[in-house]
């Protein structure tokens, strides 16, 4: 195809948009709204992910060993834990250290009260970080099976809640995205169908003079893509502004207790690329598919 033809056909696409400008504005408005909802869902889900990760980092399993486990067995345990997948850093707390902690924390440093008790009254333990909190329960079960392990403590409830929240967000988010994709497709298809209808006479003449289907389609595909791009751009700017306002508000309102969690809220700079990418891909593909749908029945003759 000649460059001049391409320019001509693209120009026609823009003319369609301008010609049906009320439809254009209405459909861009609707698409922006859809993208905003999707955008909020995606941002929310990314942030929950980041929080789950953060909580996970705070998460540790504490493996209490049987009282009287020998140093040799402890060393063996340490190396065994080192091979368990899904564990991060491992800290060993010896029986003496545990005792010392109790003395320091609860007995004001006065070890006299504990006189006469066995040296290894407190069990030795391993504090293991968990890389993925979703594995906490499984890891706990796995490690409890190992030799000389008395019990394993894991804050599985908090993680469970967060993990469930994440699952729910993913399911809801997915459903919202599917629903809004359908809505957007219907909107774009109708808008372009209006253009196709306005130009049906031209299309039929094009068929008679031997224009290819590609030639007939291009203006409408251009129309769809421009609608998609325009909506993606506007929605991106709105999400950007809205997100930053939201950040300012929660930073001001937050108590120190919440500060740690709020620090986990991602800055927009980190989210800009994926959000823009999603919007553009969504906009362009909905535009293309919509234009193809809207041509159905008009390419015959």
């Amino acid at each position: 195809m000649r460059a001049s033809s391409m320019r001509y056909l693209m120009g026609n696409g823009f003319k369609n948009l301008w010609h049906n400008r009320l439809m254009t504005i209405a459909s861009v408005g609707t698409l922006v709204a859809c993208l905003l909802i999707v955008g909020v869902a995606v941002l929310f889900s990314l942030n929950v992910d980041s929080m789950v990760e953060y909580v996970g980092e705070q998460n540790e399993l504490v493996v209490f060993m049987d009282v009287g486990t020998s140093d040799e067995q402890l060393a063996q345990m340490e190396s065994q834990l080192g091979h368990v997948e899904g564990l991060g850093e491992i800290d060993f707390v010896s029986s003496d250290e545990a005792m010392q902690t109790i003395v320091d924390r609860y007995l004001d440093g006065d070890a006299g009260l504990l006189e006469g008790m066995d040296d290894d009254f407190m069990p030795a333990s391993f504090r293991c970080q968990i890389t993925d909190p979703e594995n906490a329960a499984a890891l706990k079960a796995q490690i409890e099976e190992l030799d000389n392990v008395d019990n394993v403590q894991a804050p599985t409830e908090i993680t469970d809640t967060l993990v469930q929240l994440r699952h729910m967000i993913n399911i809801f988010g997915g459903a919202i995205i599917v629903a809004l994709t359908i809505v957007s497709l219907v909107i774009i298809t109708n808008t372009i169908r209006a253009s196709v209808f306005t130009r049906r006479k031209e299309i039929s003449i094009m068929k008679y003079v031997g224009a290819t289907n590609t030639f007939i389609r291009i203006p409408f595909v251009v129309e769809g893509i421009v609608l998609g791009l325009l909506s993606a751009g506007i929605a991106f700017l709105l999400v950007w502004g809205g997100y930053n306002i939201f950040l300012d508000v929660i930073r001001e309102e937050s108590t120190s207790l919440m500060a740690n969690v709020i620090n986990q809220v991602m800055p927009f700079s980190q989210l800009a690329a994926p959000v823009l990418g999603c919007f553009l891909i969504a906009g362009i593909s909905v535009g293309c598919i919509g234009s193809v749908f809207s041509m159905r029945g008009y390419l015959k003759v």
Partner: protein
Amino acid sequence: MIDLIDVSFQYGNGTEALHNVNLRVNQGEFAFVVGSSGAGKSSLLKLLLRETVATSGQVIVNGFNLNKLKNRQIPKFRRSLGVVFQDFRLIPDMTVYENVAFAMRVTDQSNKAIRKNVPEVLEMMNLSDKAKQHPYELSGGEQQRVSLARALINHPPLIIADEPTGNIDPEFSYEIVEMLEQINKQAGTTILMVTHEHEMVKFFGGRTINIEEGRVVFDDYIIGGANESE
């Protein structure tokens, strides 16, 4: 050029519009197609334009076997002929120049070729001074000349016209047919023109194909009245 062998055509609802039609129109011929309303004239043209495919028999136009033509070859086939309709089919928001140029634009031709060919063909159709006007500013005869100019722009070897004078005052009707004859004589373009204005056929004479109830009932040369009066 046009070759129909034992062609029958039935619409989806069962109406048989053409029955066992055999017809051959050679390169450079000018033929009228006449017949009463509902005889099957438009149906014949639909077959020739590959809007529909014959139910049985073979349709060959400009060397294309239309029974076997694949969908993606249709554009190439259509570029080998020009079509003129009773209702002109001009695009109202385009000027005369743009309407004619449109046929070149949408078939991927260069701006240079467009700038050269469009004024030429407008000149040929005596439309040069109307180039910037819109169809609604023109008479029926002028509009049909624009439509003819568009059909001619790619110099097709065949022009198919479905009642091109049907919407035009009689005085201008003759002018259109004269132009078609002139194109036929000068460029050797084959012309197939459907009409039901018997007076006009008698006036111009020439090969006349009469279709009735889907059959060719007459196909011969008749002597024009214009020649008689001379």
